[in-house]
């Protein structure tokens, strides 16, 4: 038996012994996610047990190094673990911006001390992070951000406002882009700062979206004092002073890859044609609405081609071929496709898809999801920004 086969066998046995039955229902969706954090209320005892056991193994973030609380697993091992969890319909024990965003940034740009200080708390779900990038006047043109960060000797003084801060009202800490040098060109005076949300002068205000939900906030900094060192030797700035844009760019690429890879999950379960057939019905074996049938078939073709492109890009990366900026292409196509997909799901749902409240529709689950997808092509860099990046970096068109 190869090492990987042994690993698979042991992993399966461990999961069988340790994953509580209640956590094996394959439940996804934002309502069932365990986000962790200081104020986290576990939805069940099983959710708590599951997190603790997985964190103990380092398997909440299996690919991170062991010394920082990860599992130290190889890519192949991570794939096996994920596959076994999927087969068992095990829920993810923990999701967070710490895992998705801050962790990768610290691993690449942080000092050893910063990693030792911040990463283990993320893997155990003790600290919940949020991301402070956009500002009211810095959206697509992110680098024009103005949130002021002044050097006051032993501390930084932060004044300004962030917007679209996901779950800021529930987060413990924020990683933030701030302007530390207003005199240089806009990309060169930005730093990547870590702030405790409990600090005096930090306040948040949820923003109600068209979906009726409020996953985003406005975050205000009013004379917030951030110590230069959060603990002895633990700097509050990640990367070099005034070089925060490098960190931000790295994270944005990472975010795009994640958003487009998430596209793969969209195809789990039933296809659009199958859903439409069950909702609208068949005539002589064909979807009773021929115009919708054609639109769905064409969308399925594009969706399939997109998935195969994700696969090909992964394979090309493994083979050392491929283009880095393709993450922009995948982000652009994947999010535009997802919007199109939800339009078609709404089309086939008809009037029933329009119900906003009531048990029958789980309080308008589809309608709210449909509205949520409209943000896909805005967040993480708009479609137009992605097209600009493709034009500039891949096609090398002039003046872009």
């Amino acid at each position: 038996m190869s090492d990987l086969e042994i690993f698979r066998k042991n992993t399966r046995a461990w999961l069988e012994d340790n994953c509580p039955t209640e956590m094996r229902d394959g439940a996804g969706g934002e309502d069932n996610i365990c986000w962790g954090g200081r104020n986290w209320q576990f939805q069940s005892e099983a959710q708590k047990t599951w997190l603790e056991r997985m964190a103990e193994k380092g398997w909440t973030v299996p690919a991170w190094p062991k010394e920082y609380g990860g599992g130290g697993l190889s890519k192949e091992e991570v794939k096996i673990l994920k596959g076994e969890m999927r087969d068992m319909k095990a829920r993810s024990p923990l999701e967070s911006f710490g895992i998705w965003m801050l962790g990768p940034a610290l691993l690449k740009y942080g000092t050893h001390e910063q990693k030792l200080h911040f990463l283990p708390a993320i893997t155990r779900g003790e600290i919940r992070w949020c991301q402070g990038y956009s500002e009211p006047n810095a959206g697509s043109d992110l680098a024009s951000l103005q949130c002021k960060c002044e050097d006051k000797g032993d501390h930084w003084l932060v004044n300004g406002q962030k917007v679209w801060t996901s779950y800021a009202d529930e987060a413990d800490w924020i990683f933030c882009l701030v302007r530390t040098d207003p005199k240089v060109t806009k990309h060169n005076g930005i730093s990547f700062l870590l702030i405790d949300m409990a600090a005096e002068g930090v306040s948040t205000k949820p923003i109600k979206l068209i979906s009726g939900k409020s996953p985003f906030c406005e975050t205000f900094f009013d004379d917030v004092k951030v110590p230069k060192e959060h603990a002895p030797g633990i700097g509050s700035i990640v990367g070099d002073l005034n070089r925060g844009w490098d960190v931000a760019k790295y994270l944005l690429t990472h975010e795009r890859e994640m958003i487009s890879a998430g596209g793969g999950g969209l195809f789990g379960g039933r296809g659009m044609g199958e859903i439409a057939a069950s909702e609208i019905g068949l005539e002589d074996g064909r979807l009773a609405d021929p115009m919708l049938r054609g639109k769905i078939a064409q969308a399925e073709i594009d969706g399939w081609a997109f998935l195969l492109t994700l696969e090909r890009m992964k394979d090309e990366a493994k083979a050392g071929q491929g283009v880095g900026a393709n993450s922009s292409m995948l982000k652009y196509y994947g999010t535009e496709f997802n919007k199109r997909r939800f339009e078609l799901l709404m089309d086939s749902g008809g009037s029933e898809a329009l119900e906003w409240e009531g048990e029958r529709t789980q309080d308008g689950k589809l309608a709210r999801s449909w509205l949520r997808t409209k943000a896909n092509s805005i967040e993480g860099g708009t479609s137009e920004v992605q097209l600009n990046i493709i034009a500039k970096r891949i096609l090398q068109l002039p003046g872009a």
Partner: protein
Amino acid sequence: MALVLTEEQQMLRDAARGFLDEKAPVSALRKLRDTNDETGFSRDLWKEMAEMGWAGILVGEDYGGADFGFVGAGVLAEEMGRTLTASPFLSTSILAATALQKLGGDAQRQEHLPKISAGEAVFALAVDETRKHGPQKTAMKAEKHGNGFKLSGDKTFVADGQVADNIIVAARTAGAPGDAEGITLFLVDAAAKGVARERTVMVDSRGAARLKFDGVEATGDDVLGEVDGGLVALEGVLNAGRAGLAAEMSGAAQAAFTMTMDYLKERKQFGTEIGAFQALQHRAAHLYSEIELMKSVTLKALQDLDEHYGMAGIICSLAKAKAGEVAKLASQEAVQMYGGIGMTDEFDIGFYMKRIRVAQEMFGDAAFHADRLAAMRGY
């Protein structure tokens, strides 16, 4: 299997690109057109391709072929798409070679495959009878006649039918037009009594023909595969052709796109390169994305033909539909972005638009394949 070319396949691609750029650029197709060439391709060039193993790319080594598989054939089709090279590669080396390899008996393979590998015989596949693709609509009759059959009916849009030595033709031995059962493939000598052909000069300047069969006699030995073998056998062969056409369109679209991007970087208006205008940049970037999707799905279709030939129907439809739409978009954007010069005959881009139009129609356009996919997926 990883969705990338193997080293061997990459070497084949590089060799093909070098050869075609030198020996068969777009100017060669232009010359064939301007001289009203009767054959529709250069026989000398085809001979050279055969010597490099291209004609027998799908043929087993026992019959003098290279046995390089569908991905290998697709690599060549894509490269020929880049240069719009006219050759009987699709009709003979993909369609006929697949039909003979997959359906032919020993004697048929023995007789025909070595000639295909050597570039000595040109084949044509005659399926469609109406202006839109529909193998199931086959009406041409193959009536029992003594121990054999008599074939009568008309075929249209037969690639290389004007010069083929042999014709593989779909005819009805049972059932009525629209039935999936009752279709049989026959291997007919193009010189047989009762075969009449009319060359159709097409928009892409490539060779095609309308064929008339008037009581053409065939024996049981001329049946390719099973009598009443139905659509299944024919669809397998058509799938190979569809993937080949997808690969060809992918090559043509990529070439047109590259030319267009070069033009955006050099053409100046309003005091700057027109490629600096965001209106064009966004369209170019969108087209780039679509081309990447086309490449993925085309490669997957070819790989699946190699690995699960009988199961490749959906993916070949996907590839044909996607490549048809994307290649059309690429040629349309090319002409628009080139502006007036794109409309001139002197300039090559029009040749791409014309060939892509023909290739996307052949063996089913995007609508045909989207509908086929929906039917196969149960809606």
